[in-house]
């Protein structure tokens, strides 16, 4: 599986190499070399490995290893093009920055180490396109992509998708897993095309429209401009981006079902209704708070809408023209930032390209709390937690609770380490939430106009990139990927001991 994934990455870099031809061929050689090297690596892995055991632990190992390897080889173009090489920093920091950008790309986080010290706009279009493409590939999921072209995976395919997909499990939308994976990719690709077209009509150039469509559909948030969407200062572009993000942050199964039935089937989904409700309420509250802080009604509504949507969908674009400008939410009042932190934490819907804890888990938490409080009052009553018309089984509540607790533990550990490394508390806390939720920007020193280099030291960034990977795979696959190697090594040691004893 890893081999195929690497071949896909190589193909992506090949496309970027072609793009670089239109741009004075700045990164042409670097990208071409990367294409060949990664392609060869992929071919090697593909031919030298075969499908082994497919128990749960092996699936986690396979998915985790694929993501780690893809992220690692994803640094090659940056390293060859010298994207992060600058005066005054050593090779280790260049490696960390390249890896950070690569992981942020593939996990569709959108956190960046570009900034005033090393601007995005000074890069060649080939590298920039590759950067956007990493988010697009990672957004729907590399494993989903692999499963869609690898029929030999058969039954384990759903397990693999499940391990990678955000939420509490993937629903089959076709009888065969391969078909399901393909359907997801078709919808994703079509949505990307539509967004690109809409952005082009709204006033973006072709390159920027396509680049931003890739990172809008993936709710990634990388931009080709230093001031992100704020560069265009266009209401139309912001609206297109918002719609793009919202559609992408909704469960893809709903899109697939709607396409199949040829009518919108979204309104029947309780998670969708909650998501829309939460976003609308958030926009309303933040608009009112911004008006209270002295913004005009129009500016408040525009900035509140854009930033709530971008954070609630884990998109991560910014619409501020610069630091301290109207759209820079890191400079807003405490209450607005706290509300935005809520969106950073919860993100969008399950089964979508967005990150975060997910609205469904919040709803389950609410329903379960209500049920327990009622059952304490009426101990003999049989009270069920419900979501829409469906009863929530206790097993699902337990899964959600387990997930949220592990998430919380990681946030506490991450924040403690980051603060011990010298970063301020708000930046550390929001950075941890942002990276675990694959959100992009955070609060404090890592606002929408800032770079993660401003907020965190190199060891801090290393920790955060690990969190991005953990968050992208919804924690467990990454934490449990070493179970199989551990089991094998224990087995080997036992065998060696036995052999020694026999001798």
């Amino acid at each position: 599986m890893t081999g195929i994934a690497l071949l896909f990455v190589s193909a992506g870099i090949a496309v970027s190499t072609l793009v670089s031809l239109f741009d004075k061929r700045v990164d042409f050689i670097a990208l071409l070399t990367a294409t060949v090297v990664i392609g060869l690596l992929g071919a090697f892995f593909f031919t030298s490995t075969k499908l082994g055991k497919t128990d749960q632990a092996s699936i986690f190992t396979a998915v985790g290893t694929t993501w780690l390897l893809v992220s690692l080889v994803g640094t090659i173009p940056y390293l060859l093009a010298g994207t992060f090489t600058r005066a005054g920093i050593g090779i280790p920091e260049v490696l960390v920055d390249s890896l950070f950008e690569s992981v942020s790309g593939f996990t569709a986080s959108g956190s960046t180490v570009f900034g005033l010290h090393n601007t995005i706009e000074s890069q060649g279009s080939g590298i920039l396109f590759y950067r956007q493409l990493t988010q697009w590939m990672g957004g729907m999921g590399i494993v989903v992509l692999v499963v869609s072209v690898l029929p030999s995976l058969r039954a384990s395919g759903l397990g693999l998708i499940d391990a990678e997909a955000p939420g509490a499990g993937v629903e089959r939308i076709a009888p065969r897993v391969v078909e399901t994976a393909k359907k997801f990719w078709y919808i994703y690709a079509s949505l990307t095309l539509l967004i690109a077209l809409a952005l082009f009509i709204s006033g973006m150039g072709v390159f920027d429209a396509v680049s931003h469509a890739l990172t809008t559909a993936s709710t990634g948030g990388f931009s080709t401009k230093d001031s992100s969407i704020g560069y265009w200062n266009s209401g139309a572009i912001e609206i297109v981006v918002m719609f793009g993000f919202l559609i992408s942050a909704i469960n893809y199964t709903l899109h697939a079902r709607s396409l199949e039935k040829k009518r919108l089937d979204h309104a029947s989904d309780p998670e969708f209704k909650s998501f829309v409700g939460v976003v609308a309420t958030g926009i309303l509250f933040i608009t009112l708070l911004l008006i209270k802080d002295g913004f005009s009604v129009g500016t408040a509504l525009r900035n509140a809408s854009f930033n709530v949507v971008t954070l609630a969908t884990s998109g991560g674009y910014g619409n501020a023209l610069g630091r301290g400008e109207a759209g820079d939410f890191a400079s807003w009042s405490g209450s607005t930032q706290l509300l935005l932190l809520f969106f950073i934490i919860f993100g969008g819907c399950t089964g979508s390209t967005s990150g975060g804890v997910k609205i469904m888990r919040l709803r389950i938490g609410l329903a379960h709390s209500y049920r327990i409080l009622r059952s304490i009052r009426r101990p003999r009553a049989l009270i069920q937690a419900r979501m829409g018309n469906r009863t929530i089984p206790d097993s699902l509540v337990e899964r959600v609770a387990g997930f949220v607790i592990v998430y919380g533990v990681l946030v506490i550990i991450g924040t403690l380490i980051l603060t011990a490394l010298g970063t301020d508390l708000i930046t550390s806390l929001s950075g941890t939430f942002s990276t675990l939720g694959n959100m992009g920007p955070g609060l404090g020193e890592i606002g929408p106009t800032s770079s993660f280099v401003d907020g965190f030291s190199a060891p801090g960034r290393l920790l955060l990139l690990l969190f991005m990977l953990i968050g992208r795979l919804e924690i467990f696959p990454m934490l449990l990927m070493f179970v199989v190697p551990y089991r094998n090594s224990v087995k080997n040691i036992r065998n060696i001991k036995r052999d020694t004893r026999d001798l």
Partner: protein
Amino acid sequence: MIFSRLSVRVNSGSVTTVNSPVLVALSRGALVGIFAVGLLAIISGLLDLSDSGNDTPSFLIFGTLITICCAYLTRYVSEKKLNRSESFLAVTSGFLSSILCSSFIYLFMTDEKNFANALFESTAAFTTTSLTVIDFGMSGNGLIFYRTASQLFGSFAAILLAVMVLPIADNNSRSLTSGRHATQETFPDRRKALKSIASIYLVSIVLLTLTLLTTPVDFFEALLLSISSISTGGFSISSEHFGNSSVQLLLSAGMITTGMSILVIWRLVSGKIYSAIRSSELHAYFLLIVVASLLLFLWSDEGGTSSLSSSLFIALASISTTGFHIPPFGNWSEATAFLLLFLVTVGPMSLSNGGGFQIHRLRILIAVSFRELVRQLHPRAVVKIIIGDESIKEERVREVVVFQFLFTSVIFLTAIALTISGMSMYEGVSSSITAISTAGPIRNAEGVIIEVSSFSVGERLALLPAMISGRLYLIPVLISIGYLLSEARTFLRPRRRLLQAMRSDPR
């Protein structure tokens, strides 16, 4: 009889008594709460004689009046047994009544003329939150003692709620605090529980006061510090003694004791030492103290034994949620600020005097997360949660999960309310965590203590619900609110009322 649920008075023999379940619960709780305030006022009035005695008449008149009134009114309240929701409502009502009644003492006997401030002071005292808005510098000993002793009352009420009301209220199926079986084993009846807990309190305070007398602290201050330490209230009229290492160590010992479960302490004093020290929660509690103190010591970057004792003191003030006001270290890092917030959130052992989330619940949550990791690998495995030697029931696990959810929600909502009025995000979150954990003081990121008197009235009022719900373990307060709302709904719906009346009286 159609409106039997509403009926306020039913003739029972020669005395007309309040018989409606809601009103019985409300009035019974209120009478106990106000009666306790009256008693406290009388004791404080008598103690004021040791000073100028200026406040003695006011205290005695107020105290005698309200205790007599309460004693008289008790005969009008039915003695019927309360069910679970009604018990919770009674406790909440008692707590709120004592807070409200006590705020009049601050309003009339201090220079404070703002009722909101008097209410805040009273709430902070009864909820054992180490926050104050009134300057007691010029007050007499009686008033200072009253403020300090209110903490003891609040802490005592909370521990009684945890030990007596919660387990007894849910004999059938579930428990809200940890170790229900152990609680009932140790304290099989209410009378014994009351006696045992009161004696533990009394002995701890006397011992700590006597040992504090060996340091340069006078008797009255030693008594106040002991009460504040044992009740986890953290109130003190001056913080000058906190710099003294011997005072720090003695108070640390007091805070360690108060952070321990009442069951562990009772086992220790009744000679079951092995059973007490086997408690895995106790081990976790000590581990937390040691690790937190060492981290604070390392991050303080000062070195020396005085710094070590200060680190231990600050760590304990946070873990036990006592919250003595000690100035920050010279080197106060962001990590220190976060660690202290974390410690305040976690709090001490369950069934202790402290607030916060409490170690037992945290351990259950950690066990849940490990179970989830195992389940990821073996989805069909039946994995039980075992803490120490105890296998935790699924119902209990679910309640802890809900408690965590509600705890976080209250923190978030309080922080939102605070930040809307202009507070920074850090201060808003830090204040709400401090309030729900009934800890204190509130510090900024640099460790400097923020005086609550600098908060606006709205900000102070926003902290009150978190303080009260935190002190009463959150769920009883929510159940009480739910119960009241449901009764109000019944009252407002004539058809439902009629049906209920017909059910209760088929004639």
